[in-house]
């Protein structure tokens, strides 16, 4: 027995040693935490892109400091939107919201389900002095759950189609020739471009498969109907997949295997003369300095042509969590900055300059900075164009299973490209989505 006591003693000593080490090694952590809790002028926020939405948040912090000089915004970087989602899931599952920050940036496509599954994890933003009419309806359709506003929009996911005008010119086209066209006409132009220059006219991240979604939205059609996947009886969907597979087989649409291949090889690596995605792709396009002045943006083609297509992809909004100790401050901060208040112009102007974040706040989009021509895009005033385009994006049916649909449609594309039958593959995809939804 004595020996066991000795052993226990030894263990306690080891533990105590480690614990002491622990305290000396991270005093910064401990004090920072308590300070945050006590400090009435500090808010903590989770965000995930050091070159995009984090500069926007810094801009907002600086703007709000004009109103409240003691204000501090602690921005905590995450590796991606999924980290924020996991943090909420874990906190809610453990019934311990204390691990959450005051505010989180959250993906538009997921928020509805998260609010429904974990209502206590969120604080509605009702009562904040925000003029909601100042935002596009499509954007607000995500962050409004059962008529209650939960989030303040940050970036604008409006899709653009950017083309290399020098390449188009080489093949005898101008930017107007690719505006308002049908996808069949587009495929023809793309073939010509491929022949003349060897470049593709479009690429897609085939691990995210966002192209079909955007192309459908430009038609005003969703992947879902009445809460169920709508693939097999969806003629628009069939045509769109046909366009993508044809383009892939022609070599005019590159299906990249990963996000990094999509950005680094196809776009930065100069393999494509056209890029269609949410406007947050612009900083990636702009990475290649020698292409300055050679790009221009326009709207999306449509199936029938004769009109311009509008879509959105991958925006996010800021939400107050259920753990926010200082809800009034958070509401005031959000309303004053991103919500279109007095600091909105400063916030959005700097967010645009530093992070390329384009507002979906209509009045903020009228500022001077937005009217400026952008040298990289041959002097085109792309930002005001994008804000304008954003107001035309049609509202389509959304689903919690957005990504399940995308993944399975993407799988169908792969299989059809390898010789599978379109009808059969779409049926398989629809069945699988139904299965995943538990229908």
């Amino acid at each position: 027995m004595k020996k066991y006591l000795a052993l226990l003693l030894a263990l306690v000593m080891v533990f105590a040693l480690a614990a002491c080490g622990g305290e000396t090694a991270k005093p910064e952590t401990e004090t920072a935490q308590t300070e945050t809790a006590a400090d009435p002028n500090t808010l903590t926020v989770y965000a995930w892109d050091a070159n995009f939405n984090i500069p926007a948040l810094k801009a907002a912090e600086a703007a709000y400091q004009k109103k409240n000089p003691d204000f501090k915004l602690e921005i905590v970087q995450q590796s991606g939107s999924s980290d924020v989602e996991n943090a909420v899931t874990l906190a809610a599952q453990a019934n311990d919201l204390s691990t959450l920050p005051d505010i989180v940036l959250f993906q538009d496509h997921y928020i509805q389900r998260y609010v429904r599954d974990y209502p206590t994890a969120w604080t509605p933003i009702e009562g904040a002095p925000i003029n909601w009419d100042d935002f596009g309806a499509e954007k607000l359709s995500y962050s409004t759950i059962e008529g209650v506003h939960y989030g303040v929009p940050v970036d604008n996911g409006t899709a653009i189609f950017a083309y290399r005008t020098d390449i188009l010119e080489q093949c005898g086209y101008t930017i107007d020739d690719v505006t308002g066209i049908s996808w069949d006409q587009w495929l023809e132009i793309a073939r010509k471009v491929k022949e003349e220059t060897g470049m593709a006219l479009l690429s897609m991240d085939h691990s995210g498969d966002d192209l079909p979604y955007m192309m459908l939205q430009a038609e005003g059609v969703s992947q879902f109907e009445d809460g169920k996947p709508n693939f097999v009886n969806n003629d628009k969907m069939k045509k769109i997949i046909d366009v993508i597979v044809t383009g892939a087989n022609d070599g005019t649409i590159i299906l990249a295997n990963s996000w990094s291949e999509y950005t680094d090889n196809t776009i930065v690596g100069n393999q494509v003369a056209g890029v269609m995605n949410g406007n947050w792709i612009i900083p990636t396009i702009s990475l290649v300095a020698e292409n300055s002045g050679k790009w221009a943006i326009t709207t999306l083609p449509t199936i029938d042509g004769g009109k311009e297509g509008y879509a959105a992809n991958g925006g996010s909004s800021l939400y107050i969590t259920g753990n926010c100790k200082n809800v009034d401050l958070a509401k005031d901060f959000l309303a004053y900055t991103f919500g279109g208040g007095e600091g909105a112009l400063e916030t959005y102007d700097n967010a645009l300059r530093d992070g390329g974040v384009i507002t979906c706040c209509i009045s903020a989009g009228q500022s001077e900075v937005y009217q400026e021509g952008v040298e990289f895009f041959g002097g085109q005033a792309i930002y005001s164009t994008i804000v304008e385009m954003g107001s035309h994006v049609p509202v389509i049916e959304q689903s919690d299973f957005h990504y399940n649909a995308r993944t399975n449609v993407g799988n169908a594309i792969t299989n059809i490209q390898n010789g599978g039958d379109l009808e059969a593959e779409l049926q398989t995809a629809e069945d699988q989505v139904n299965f995943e939804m538990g229908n």
Partner: protein
Amino acid sequence: MERKQKRIGWYFLLTATALICVFSFFPMFSALVTSFKNSTGAQWITESGKPWYYNYARMFQDKTFMTTLKNTFLYLIIQVPIMLVFAILLAQILNNKDLKLRGFFRTCIFLPCAISLVSYALIFRSLFATEGLVNSILLALGFIPAKINWLGQTGTARFVIIFALVWRWTGYNMVFYLAGLQNLDYSVYEAARIDGANGWKTFWHITVPQLRPVIIMTFIMSINGTLQLFDESVNLTNGGPAGTTMTMSHYIYNNAFGTGTANFGYASAMSFLVFILVAILAVINLKVGDTRD
């Protein structure tokens, strides 16, 4: 006296056993309970009118899960033997006392497993990109007529995953064999040489049996690691193309966290299938290779 010592022995393993019970078995038990619950884990599955075994039955109708099961076993059957044979071979070569620079070679071959998983997947993805270095080199050497879309085709994508796994873990296993070889009883070899056995015969009849405990340990480790394979599937191919390289753990993760459609009940049920599979394979392994008298 003897009995008292044996009793004291219990105290020594108490801390570890208690920790494993609290931090492994208890969560496992929680997961087992969750596997009979609904998607948020808040309600019993029977409360929504479904049978208690619903989450388990669901697996067998889930085509994606069946694909991941197939993929995982494919990796297991191809990768583990290649890697272990390769590791034994390297260990055997490096065990030769006449070989120079042994430490250097050993270090080179071990180095890959010192790298963090996140990093090595990144490195391989860049190397095997369509515009990546591997294609450039093969093209320059004239081995391939055109660039290969390595990660975009099922066969080549699986090859890249297996290649990456072999690259990372061979050195790790080799070190175990090397150490095993250094502990061998050399008098047996002398005897064998006198009997006129050749190199292959001594290797097969003397080295392998003596290495058996090490081989079993590496086998169990590798089976366990492969059936729980996660990082390569997530970071190298993201399961693509069309889910044909996705592993079970990756799919479980997607169901619990990944795609925003968390289904904790179902994810827990799938985890238990993995657990049972690993346990069965490990028991077979131990039975086949039990040397303890």
